């Protein structure tokens, strides 16, 4: 028994060491963003002799960080709200209506999950330009509605089937019908699965690169955090003290949110994968 305990303690220490090594690249980038150019060039591994915030104030101003942050929030919030709204009502109706037509529509809605974005990106851009959705933050947010809906409907549909029909009917007796029935009685019951979809979609939209690159990369006013970091790094190339600062500023919001909501995020991602 004692042997077992020592073995477990040893395993624990080994795993902590492995995890630290695993995260070392991120830690390294983090503390190098506080060095001057000369210090980065002298030794990357050593901690900064003198912690400087000069890189941060430079990059912050240069890429207009608050603006980017707002853009990211607008795109993600608009995209997520739309996906949740249109997918939950449709999935509910499709799951509750037992007819061939409804089953056919359901298939039409979820089949696009098989279409890789890369295989339609060219014409998505062309269509978005025709509809005046390209080049604006709002237009980009709207585009996520359709792109995110198939998976959201799929997950909601599976969940609604498990919600007893009697609950809808008790709502109907109260006189609620249509949307008010759905939003007062049914939607609150879908909370766990809404959380799952929210976690997956926020991670996807917040970090998305290819679609924003096609749609909003034209003007500095409409860029996202990742896009701005991408063009910044392209421009400053080997000015590592600046590029790594831009990298830290781009990932910091995600890491902070992850630390705060760690359990929910991991749970949401697992549930999404297992159901999807």
């Amino acid at each position, binding site marked *: 028994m004692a042997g077992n305990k020592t073995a477990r303690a040893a395993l624990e220490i080994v795993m902590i060491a492995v995890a630290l090594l695993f995260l070392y690249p991120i830690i390294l980038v983090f503390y190098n963003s506080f060095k001057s150019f000369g210090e980065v060039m002298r030794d990357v591994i050593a901690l900064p002799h003198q912690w400087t915030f000069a890189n941060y104030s430079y990059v912050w101003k240069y890429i207009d960080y608050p603006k980017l942050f707002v853009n990211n929030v607008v795109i993600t919030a608009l995209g997520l709200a739309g996906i949740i709204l249109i997918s939950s*009502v449709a999935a509910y109706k499709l799951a509750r209506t037992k007819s061939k037509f409804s089953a056919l529509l359901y298939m039409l809605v979820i089949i696009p999950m098989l279409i890789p974005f890369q295989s339609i990106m060219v014409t998505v851009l062309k269509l978005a330009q025709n509809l005046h959705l390209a080049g604006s933050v709002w237009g980009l947010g709207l585009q996520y509605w359709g792109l995110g809906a*198939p998976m959201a409907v799929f997950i909601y549909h599976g969940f609604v089937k498990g919600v007893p029909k009697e609950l809808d009917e008790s709502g109907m007796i109260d006189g609620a019908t249509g949307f008010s029935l759905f939003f007062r009685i049914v939607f609150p019951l879908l909370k766990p699965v809404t959380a799952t979809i929210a976690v997956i979609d926020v991670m996807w939209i917040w970090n998305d690169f290819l679609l924003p690159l096609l749609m909003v990369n034209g003007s500095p006013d409409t860029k996202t955090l990742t896009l701005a970091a991408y063009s910044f790094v392209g421009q400053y190339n080997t000015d590592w003290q600046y590029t790594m600062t831009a990298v830290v500023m781009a990932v910091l919001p995600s*890491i902070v949110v992850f630390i705060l909501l760690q359990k929910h995020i991991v749970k949401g991602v697992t549930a999404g994968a297992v159901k999807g």
Partner: protein
Amino acid sequence: MQRIGRKTSGKIEFGMFTLPVLICIVLAFYIPFFMSMYYSLTDWNGISRSVNFIGMDNFRQIFSGDANFSSASWFTVKFSILFIVLSNVLAIVIAVLLDQKLKTSSLLRAAFFIPYILSLVIVGFIWKFIFSQGFASLADTTGWPIWGWSWLGTPKLAFVSVLLVSVWQSIGFYIVIYLAGLQSVPSDLLEAAKVDGAGAFRRFFSVVLPMLAPSVTIAVFMSLTNSIKVFDVILSLTGGGPGGSTYSVSFDIYRETFQNNLFGYGTAKALVLFVVVLIITVLQLTYFKRKEVEQ
């Protein structure tokens, strides 16, 4: 009379609930998809108003004389196979170790998950810094030749770099799936195997691994669909180089369309990608369905 009224109002309600999603999905997928089918038969360059119909010429060229496409396909196949094997094997090993009721299990799980929440483009930049600057410093301090190798500058090593960075980024996701799967392995079954004298390895291969089958199904499926579309990491880590050795199919499509301005040709390639992904997905789904029925 009242009955007909209710029927129509039911239909209107059905329409109100489902139309928004239908419109959005038709705009996001179906129209672009059919537009792609049309443009793949043309020589459109993306800007010009003249669009000439050239029949199957694009497809003929893809399969007969496009060295870029065949090398990008070969890269993607190699990458996908190695990515699926590496990320799943490593994730199972780490998940099993984390499942040993360690005090810091949930903290460690979170640590391995962190890269997965980062944007892939940014992950590429982080590792570009590590491979060029970090390794140079390590070479200076340790003197080991491995740090001095040109990790992004030689075709073979650049492939390894793209692979390792991709595994690093997403392994946390697969660990979490396997950890969830491990919760369904009954502990009395493990105890019984232990009493019967089965060692740790025997227990793993005869008890744990078969019970993990559903998780393996999910994780392999996800890793395949993700690896076949690999793009972002390559863009920021190697830019497709050196000498075009790390072009993936997605990257090739992107380059052909937006850098070479061959929109018609690029959409044709994109449709080839779609058909391949579709075939693989359908094969996988039928295979797993059959397996589920057998069980």
